[in-house]
């Protein structure tokens, strides 16, 4: 009970953008450094890992493709949580977080699609198949683009934020349905092999580099997200200041004409 209260209090304290900026400013170098380190280790291990007996060297694409795909989903989950924060608690940072996360998530999704396509060419013999996984990731990508388009289409910040939050939540409810319907429709991609009830079916020599590079990319995402949130807050401040100075100049002009 006291822990929840504590957490709520801390989240409320973060509602002050200056405090958040200070915290983010302190955190970004550390997380950025950690992500560079973990990524270096993970990718190094990926190149040291044995080649697959069937797929040869192309299996190394997995170490970036799979983290990209995970992050594409993780980022949407972050956006959905932010959307809840906007709609339920009206937390001022939640809409900043949503707006900042959308382009990053879109890029990760696009990268997952591109790397998967490059991997699919030698393995399946084609750049693209209308398979369940690929199709549902493509739909996820389209939904990211929709959210981005909506946030850019409305001028009013808070209104755009709440509209994007509603769209994100509706999309979040829809994602399981889309996933399920597309699975039912057609499938070729291999089933999940890491997170399973009966333990991973993937060999440890592949699993460890994969997990470490996934952790590295997650840290990278957190860094980028914090940086984008800071940039968004600063952008809002600049536009608010510009508006104020324009109003002040107008006021002065009016006074000058009156006298």
């Amino acid at each position: 009970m006291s822990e929840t209260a504590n957490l709520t209090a801390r989240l409320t304290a973060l509602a002050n953008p200056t405090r958040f900026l200070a915290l983010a400013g302190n955190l970004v170098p550390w997380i950025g450094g950690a992500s560079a380190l973990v990524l270096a280790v993970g990718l190094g291990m990926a190149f040291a890992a044995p080649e697959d007996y069937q797929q040869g060297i192309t299996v190394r694409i997995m170490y970036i493709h799979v983290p990209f795909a995970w992050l594409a989903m993780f980022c949407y989950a972050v956006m959905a949580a932010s959307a809840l924060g906007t709609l339920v608690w009206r937390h001022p940072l939640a809409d900043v977080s949503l707006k900042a996360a959308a382009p990053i998530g879109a890029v990760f999704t696009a990268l997952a699609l591109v790397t998967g396509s490059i991997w699919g060419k030698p393995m399946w013999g084609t750049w693209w198949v209308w398979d369940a996984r690929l199709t549902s990731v493509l739909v996820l990508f389209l939904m990211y683009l929709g959210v981005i388009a909506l946030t850019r289409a409305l001028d009013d910040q808070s209104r755009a934020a709440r509209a994007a939050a509603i769209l994100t939540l509706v999309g979040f409810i829809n994602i399981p349905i889309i996933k399920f319907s597309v699975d039912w429709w057609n499938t070729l991609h291999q089933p999940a092999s890491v997170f399973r009830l009966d333990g991973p079916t993937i060999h440890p020599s592949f699993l460890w580099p994969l997990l470490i590079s996934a952790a590295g990319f997650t840290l990278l995402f957190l860094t980028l997200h914090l940086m984008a949130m800071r940039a968004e807050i600063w952008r809002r401040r600049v536009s608010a200041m510009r508006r104020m100075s324009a109003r002040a100049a107008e006021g002065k002009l009016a006074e000058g004409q009156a006298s």
Partner: protein
Amino acid sequence: MFALYLREVRLGVRAGGGALTGVLFFLAVVAVIPFGVGPDLDLLARIGPAVLWIGALLASLLGLERLFQADREDGSLDMLLIADGRHMLALSVFVKCLAHWTANVLPLVAVAPLLGLFMNVPPVGLAAATLTLLIGTPAITFIGAVGAALVVALPRGGLLVSVLILPLSIPVLIFGVAASRGAVAEPDPFLPPFLILTALTLFFAVIGPAAAALALRNAD
């Protein structure tokens, strides 16, 4: 509520409402398909139900942006918002969606069998496609209401509505086409996808108006 329904239907059917334009668009979409894929009757019969579904989906997107915009311009949207205490806003949105569906989408369903004849779809397939359209298209309208409510303040939101809605309506399309194909092709079942389609419509009948009401309250 019934008065609201009647008013909306009357407004939609009257000249200037997009019902006839939607039917013409549907006709045009279906008519260009044979030019694109060639006049092979067997092929057309196989893809016929899918073409009908895609055409109906696109045509039902046409009028959606006007769903709340016209009401916003003449102020009746504000009346609905103010009346929220007496009539739940989500319920009003639901009724508006039903009326929009009756005026704009039901004609599409009605001409679907005729267009299916052009595509050489067998009678059983025609009946199945029409039935699935009848059951499935309300779901598209309910999803569309969310998009229409989100962009209600934008002067030119029509294209954005389509971009936002199309990814969300993929499940409806999949199960609609699957059911109408299941009625014709022997090994595929008809009933399971049809029941899922019905479930989708009921599901979106709840989610859509609730989210649209939230978005409308946010819009002003």
